[in-house]
């Protein structure tokens, strides 16, 4: 009889107890999830179909916000282009740079931990400080970099003052602060079994072969991880461009999150901002799914 009841309920009393204990422990997160994620997520979907400026009550406008964004807002396409440019070039370059730096640090060198500290350091500096320092460094008249270029007899580069150079400049600064990804790569590289390299040496493989056929495949899961994290944050990149270029010159660095922030908190178009947010959300989800799909072809999960 008892066995039957158990079968119908599916859980034994011990399982019920474990379920209660588990839910008890995760309850803060579960509540937080409803308050700070689930509710606002769908609330913003609701607002995206409304016109709302915080003062007057929200008015249902159907798909008008979305239609306006896609067909009647030239800035949106400029913003989309900027964001794709930054994410498309900046993130892979950042990951490649971090990977190469880690590879270099993983070779036979003296003072590895000193170099690691130096390479990592820019990643922990507050974004506001990074912005202030680079703004001064890149200054056309008084900045150190242009002074150096002039000293070497080269022309002055108007880095962030020029619409064509502003995005590459921001990518450069992004690559400069790749400490987190680098540290993750370094830990992975140190975990690659020595025996693999030894075996390859015996088989007559040179350094390049070993890098190509052992190091890279063994790191592909972490490359994927850093790419996913990089893309998710890349799409949301706000603080540095906001402080360094403010979206300029000529909207050249008006990235998605700047545009969204502007719509929400400067123009108070909460409905349109919500629609923008949902478009971003869907893009990020699709992008991540695509990345994971593609990963089946190039990510190597252990030899076991």
């Amino acid at each position, binding site marked *: 009889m008892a066995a039957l009841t158990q079968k119908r309920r599916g859980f034994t009393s011990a*399982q019920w107890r474990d379920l209660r*204990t*588990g*839910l*008890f*422990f*995760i309850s*803060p*997160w*579960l509540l*937080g*999830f409803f308050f*700070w994620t689930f509710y*606002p*997520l769908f*609330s*913003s979907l609701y*607002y995206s179909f409304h016109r709302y400026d915080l003062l007057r009550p929200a008015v249902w406008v159907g798909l008008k916000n979305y239609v306006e964004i896609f067909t009647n807002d030239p800035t949106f396409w400029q913003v989309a282009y900027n964001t794709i440019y930054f994410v498309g070039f900046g993130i892979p370059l950042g990951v490649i740079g971090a990977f190469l*730096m880690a590879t270099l640090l993983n070779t036979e*060198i003296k003072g590895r931990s000193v170099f*690691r*500290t*130096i390479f*990592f*350091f820019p990643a*922990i500096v*507050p*974004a506001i*400080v990074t912005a*202030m*320092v680079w703004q*001064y460094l890149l*200054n056309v*008249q*008084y*900045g150190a970099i242009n002074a150096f270029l002039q000293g070497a007899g080269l022309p002055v580069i108007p880095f962030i003052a020029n619409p064509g150079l502003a995005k590459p400049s921001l990518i450069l600064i992004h690559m400069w602060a790749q400490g*987190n990804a680098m*540290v993750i790569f*370094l830990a992975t590289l140190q975990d690659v*079994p020595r*025996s693999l390299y*030894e*075996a390859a040496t*015996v088989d007559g493989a040179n350094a390049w072969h070993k890098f190509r056929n052992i190091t890279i495949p063994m790191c592909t*899961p972490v490359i994927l*991880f850093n790419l996913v994290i990089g893309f*998710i944050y890349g*799409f*949301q990149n*706000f*603080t540095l461009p906001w402080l360094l270029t403010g979206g300029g010159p000529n909207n050249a660095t008006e990235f998605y*999150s700047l545009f*969204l*922030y502007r719509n929400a*908190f400067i123009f108070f178009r909460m409905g349109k*901002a*919500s629609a923008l*947010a949902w478009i*971003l*959300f869907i893009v990020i989800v699709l992008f991540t799914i695509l990345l994971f799909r593609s990963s089946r072809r190039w990510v190597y999960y252990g030899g076991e």
Partner: protein
Amino acid sequence: MAIRTSAPTQLGNAVQERAISRQDTLAHWGIQFVKYLVLIFLSVSFILPFFWMVTSAVKNDAQVFTIPPVWIPIPAHWENYWNAWNTYNFNGYLFNTVFLYAIPLTIGVTIASAFVAYGFARVRWPGRDLFFFACVATMMIPYQVTMVPLFITFKNLGWINSYLPLVIPGFFGSPYFIFMLRQFYMTLPQELSDAARIDGASELGIFGRIILPLVKPALIVVALFTFMNAWNEYLQPLIYINQEALYPVSLGINNLRQTMAQIGSQKLAYPYLMSVSTLVTLPIVIAFFFTQRTFIEGISLTGLKG
């Protein structure tokens, strides 16, 4: 997977190695030379901006406007540090950042995340993996999606111009740190909990008395990261704090910049900006150097064992 090298092969290898050793040494030194060259070039490019920041902070206006720029200003105006900090309200900004924002947030995030992660790691219950997956998946949701409704909610609660919207959500745990602590908990042997359960300890008792003391290093990482994130955060205070007296240091620096809009519009604009930037970076540097190993382990751990 590993191919065992047999003794004869190793011997043969050694003979071969000796034969080409001279050529090898040369190539070896060549490669080492290039490596150190690259390492030094990279190090310089990482350090130079900060060197520029620190030395620009002690310039006077004449030294700022010298072309080509001076790297080491003589005489150095060390008083800039004191003056920049105290002419503007940086003591107030510092107080706000530390006592209204970073410390409460750190306490909330650390306790809540440690608690929640325990439920995901040390108790086996039906549906756990599904919930854990949901928790990790929320990390993918861009802040921008929840930003507008949260602002509306907090505005209705009358929390604008307070640190409550930045701090209170932390008391419900942070998915990132829940994930990280779970990884730490998983490395502890299950026997620890089992033995305690047999002795009749409650789950809460096991958590508080046995597991928590064992993951102290991880808790320090979480606290450190949370504190630093609060110290560095810009977007959230920008949204919620718009009274100058309530600014955290990050907004304070930008406020100083706006006050001094452009080079030359105000005396000592750039030296002052660089002074406060240096002073705001300093605690981060100190914290980092004292906790470097834990710090880097924390980062690699979250990245590694997915």
